[in-house]
């Protein structure tokens, strides 16, 4: 099962395209905020894939932790302090803490059962955000906050008004998160997780405490997805209860599967396709939901390994 990591040229290409995105996006009909959206949702899908693709456990409730990150960041800016880094930090802390507590209840389940329990627990946070009007704004979502310029001491980055600056800020956060995830996957921990994915029973016989590793992987995954969530709140200056709903979790899963869940970069590709498609379809037809549903079906029936998996197979054969 050992697969060589992508050639350096590919990696350089990916980063080059991401760095230059504000320059080339307008030429293909995109805009910088769309690029930021792809990065944020791509990070969420890649975080989910840490669990789904590299530990082999299906979580269908990741929107909950994504949304907790978003609400954590929004509430920090609104009630605590006008500081963007603090907002992200507390958003991540909230999502990770929730993931750690619920993960302890979930980590012993497997397969379909794991998926069901994660979906069901995820909905708790949706209902809290939906019902707790005084704190969260209920159905209307959390408003009344905005991301704050970043003060580097000698230099101020105005990420609020300069969309390109905000894109690069998101890209910076994305790069840090992705680097940590990549590092973790190469570490003994990551190898152990892949061993569990490949054959749980054998891993258990080797003396690996499987449940603890799945819990740890779940928590790591929640930490990164809540980071994506806090960036999402900063991107929109708004937190929406829908971002906690299980349909959002489904979107993350399809991004990961569509891009290719056995590859590290696949979910980013999936997120790009999904975001662009949704953006385009919702502007041309009111029945875009059906078309997104159709996309789910087409991916499952014809591209179960995702686009990258499909391409890899073609190259190999």
């Amino acid at each position, binding site marked *: 099962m050992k697969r060589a990591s992508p050639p350096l040229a590919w990696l350089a290409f990916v980063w080059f395209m991401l760095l230059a995105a504000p320059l080339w996006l307008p030429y293909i009909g995109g805009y910088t905020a769309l690029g930021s959206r792809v990065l944020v949702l791509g990070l969420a899908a890649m975080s989910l894939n840490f669990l*789904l693709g590299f530990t082999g456990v*299906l979580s*269908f409730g990741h929107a909950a932790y994504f949304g907790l990150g978003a609400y954590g960041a929004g509430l920090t800016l609104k009630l605590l302090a006008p500081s963007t880094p603090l907002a992200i930090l507390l958003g991540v802390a909230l999502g990770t803490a929730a993931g750690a507590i*619920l993960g302890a*209840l979930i980590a*012993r*389940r*497997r*397969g*379909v*059962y794991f*998926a*069901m*329990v994660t*979906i*069901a*627990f995820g*909905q*708790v946070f949706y*209902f*809290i955000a939906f*019902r*707790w009007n005084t704190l969260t704004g209920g159905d209307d979502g959390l408003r009344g906050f905005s991301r704050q310029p970043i003060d580097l001491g000698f230099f101020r980055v105005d990420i609020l008004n300069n969309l390109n600056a905000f894109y690069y800020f998101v890209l910076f956060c994305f790069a840090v998160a992705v680097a940590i995830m990549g590092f973790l996957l190469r570490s003994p921990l990551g190898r152990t997780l892949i061993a569990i994915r490949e054959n749980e029973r054998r891993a258990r016989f080797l003396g690996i405490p499987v449940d603890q590793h799945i819990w740890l992987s779940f928590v790591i995954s929640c930490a990164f997805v809540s980071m994506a969530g806090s960036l999402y709140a900063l991107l929109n200056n708004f937190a929406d209860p829908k971002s906690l709903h*299980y349909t959002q979790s*489904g979107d993350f*899963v*399809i991004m990961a*599967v569509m891009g290719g869940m056995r590859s590290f970069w696949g979910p980013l590709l999936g997120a790009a396709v999904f975001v662009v498609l949704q953006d385009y379809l919702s502007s041309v037809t009111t*029945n875009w*939901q*059906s078309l*997104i*549903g*159709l*996309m*789910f*079906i087409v*991916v*499952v*029936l014809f591209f*179960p390994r995702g686009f990258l998996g499909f391409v890899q197979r073609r190259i190999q054969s």
Partner: protein
Amino acid sequence: MELILFNGFNGLIIGAFYVLMALGLSLILNLSGVINFAHGGFLAIGGYLAYTISPYVGFWAALVIAPALTACLGIAIERTMIRRLYGRDPLYSLLLTFGLAFIFEDMTRAIWGAQGLPFSPPSFLNQPISLDYFFVTYYRLFMMAVVGIIVLGLFLFLRYTRLGVRIRAGTLDLETVSALGVNVRALRTMNFGIGIFLAGLAGVLAGGNLSLEPTMGANVLMPSFVAIIVGGVGSLPGTLFGGLLIGVASGLTTVWFPSASEAVIYIIMAVVLLVRPRGLMGEEGIMS
């Protein structure tokens, strides 16, 4: 006291819907390992079909025909799409039915409109049985009776008929059942159809109780999952008990703390998972 009775009874009604939904979901999950996310979509379609055909055939016939038509749609989808995914990672059937749920909801909205539609049972059923208990209408009692009969019928069917015994056997060990010469493909299709019939029936009954809305099914889907988990995956009596339990619990919570009426069922689930991870009536080792 009045308020407690009122909300407890409401909870029982809602619990009965959860039971119909969750039993269908459970049947499909147990035999085929598929979490049917589109189950709520089927429920809505059942209700809307009854709305469309009842002017021609009347309420009573619609109560049977609409679920049957829904089941046919379900069987068609099982044969063309879901069947290809048996034996693969449950991820794929989950995503497929998830996509179907999007399509169903959107199509229901496109065909019948986003606004709620009134769907009334015969007027004599809408009378309350007494003025003291205005909330106990004949229709609600009738619904309870239908659900009771259906559940009893389902359990007798699974216990005493050849097909029912095969479904139960297949839940335990599909390979052996297949080796004994049972056509497993057909068995799964029948089983799927039965599950969808229950969803469609729940849709017709729910439409008469409140009104028809495209999202009516999606709203019952999550509590039905919770009912299955609380009752114990793999156990149909558990699903029955779980559905009633969370329905009544959520109804009673409305009395004291209305904004927590949705969240309470998840709290119950968390407690059950902590104290008894396999669910209240779940068997050791199944899908844990």
